């Protein structure tokens, strides 16, 4: 694994979210192989990689929707690996699922209200979400199935925010959205971070990830191929790590069987 972070990040135990030697299987298929990462408070930690690299699996396992075969997930030092997803959400790990996944028969406001049902104490309220997304207040009583993709994404983020999470997990925000819409949504990140949240996101669009992230983590076939701040990596290094080209060192896990595709 190419670790370009030497000296720039504290190595002591101040990580808000930590993953240790996480191995996850889908039936017989090993989706993640001894993955480790540490997310510090206030960071925007971006996980990138090709399709099938294991990005969403990693996020879902952190959220609790998937049980790892080995390894641990720690929140603020406490082991939450065995904690059910709904309890993890109440403790502060809130995920925005890939594809928005709003409650289709509920209105915009009702979706946000569900988000507040088990919310922690904090600065985020439904009112504050309406302030951040100025179009939402006027459409609060509309069914979410009538919204555009970008609007739905905003509601999904809002629903997660009103729970006042400690770590916000964003899975493929840009999926199915026009680039200009994606940029507008990512432009909200500073506002979100300013209230004390930490963000861990999965992103297909590498350049978008590099633009917003404070730390990059590249996966390939379930293994880490690159890790470090965006400023410390070159485009060719990212490309090599993303596609698994010669020149990108693979982590010394079990050697892959030749001929097996990603």
């Amino acid at each position, binding site marked *: 694994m190419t670790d370009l972070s030497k000296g720039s990040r504290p190595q002591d135990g101040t990580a808000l979210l930590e993953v240790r030697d996480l191995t996850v299987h889908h039936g017989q298929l090993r989706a993640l192989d001894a993955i480790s990462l540490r997310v510090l408070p206030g960071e925007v930690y971006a996980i990138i990689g090709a399709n099938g690299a294991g990005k969403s699996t990693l996020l879902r396992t952190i959220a609790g929707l998937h049980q790892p075969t080995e390894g641990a997930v720690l929140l603020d030092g406490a082991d939450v690996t065995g904690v059910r*997803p*709904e309890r993890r*959400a109440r403790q502060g790990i809130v995920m925005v*699922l890939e594809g928005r996944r*709003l409650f*289709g028969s*509920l209105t915009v406001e*009702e979706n946000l209200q*569900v988000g507040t049902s088990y*919310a922690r104490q904090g600065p985020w309220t439904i009112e504050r979400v309406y302030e951040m997304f100025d179009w939402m207040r006027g459409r609060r009583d509309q069914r979410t199935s009538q919204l555009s993709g970008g609007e739905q994404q905003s509601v999904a983020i809002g629903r997660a925010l009103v729970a006042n999470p400690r770590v916000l997990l964003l899975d493929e925000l840009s999926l199915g959205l026009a680039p200009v819409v994606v940029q507008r949504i990512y432009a909200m990140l500073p506002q979100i971070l300013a209230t004390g949240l930490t963000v861990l996101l999965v992103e297909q669009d590498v350049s978008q990830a590099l633009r917003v992230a404070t730390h990059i983590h590249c996966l390939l076939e379930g293994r880490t191929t690159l890790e470090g701040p965006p400023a410390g990596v070159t485009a060719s290094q990212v490309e090599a790590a993303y596609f698994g080209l010669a020149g990108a060192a693979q982590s010394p896990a079990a050697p892959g069987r030749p001929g097996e595709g990603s």
Partner: protein
Amino acid sequence: MAWVNAVIQGILTGGLYALFACGLSLMFGVMKVVNLAHGDLAVVAGYIAIGIIFVTHVPVLWSFLIVVPVMAALGYALQRTVIQTALNRSVLTTLIVMFGLSQVIENGLLQFFSANTRGIGANLALVTESFNLGSQIQIAWLLIVIFAAAVAVLGGLQYFLSRSQYGRLIRAVADDTEAARLSGADHRHVFGIAAAIAFGTVALGGIAYGMYSQLDPTAGTDTILLFAFAAVVIGGLGSLWGTLLGGIVLGIAQQIGAQLNISYETLAGYLVFLAILVIRPQGLIATGTQS
């Protein structure tokens, strides 16, 4: 004029069918469980009411106050244990388990109570009397009360689902269980609440049925389950008021059939159900959220 009477009777019995149907619809809408034991639970509630009245001699109307909460609690418990376990396995397992429960209950009732029919009698004028509109229309007060109760229950349920926090959670879990969990909701608890409501309403229907007609161990499947299902399909899944409409249509079809020939009553209802299945499978009120 006899036809008008048939239609009126049909509309009113539709209320009873709606009481049966709303629990079935709720359990399927929220946790995708087709409760094949649904009708048998109504019969069980009726038998419990008979037993309580026999032992304690409380007035009949009190039996509602005792049996409905007991059945609701039973529903929560059964959902959290047996049904949730079955759901964790597969759809097939759930169907088999519910069918198994249905047969166990029915044969159990047959074993302990014999096949004789029983009614829940009451000496209230409200229950035994009827009034006349003109010479050919006779309406039992009990039917009016049952219809009013059905409307009240459906209205209350609709209000609960659309206005309360728990109702919102139930609808959210029904829409997307995984997303609801990520918002902190314990879906097993929400399922339990939905089951409790379903069991409670079907208990209400069962006792009402015992007062209006006669209970026997096989009534759960012979009449109640299949009629409830027909009402849901005719009215359209996803709409509570749809089950009332479905119940009414079913009731009218049955009464008109009975006018042609008394033994056509049940058959007429089934034929209308099959027709809807062919012509408009999404039901009369299609909400478009779920099929």
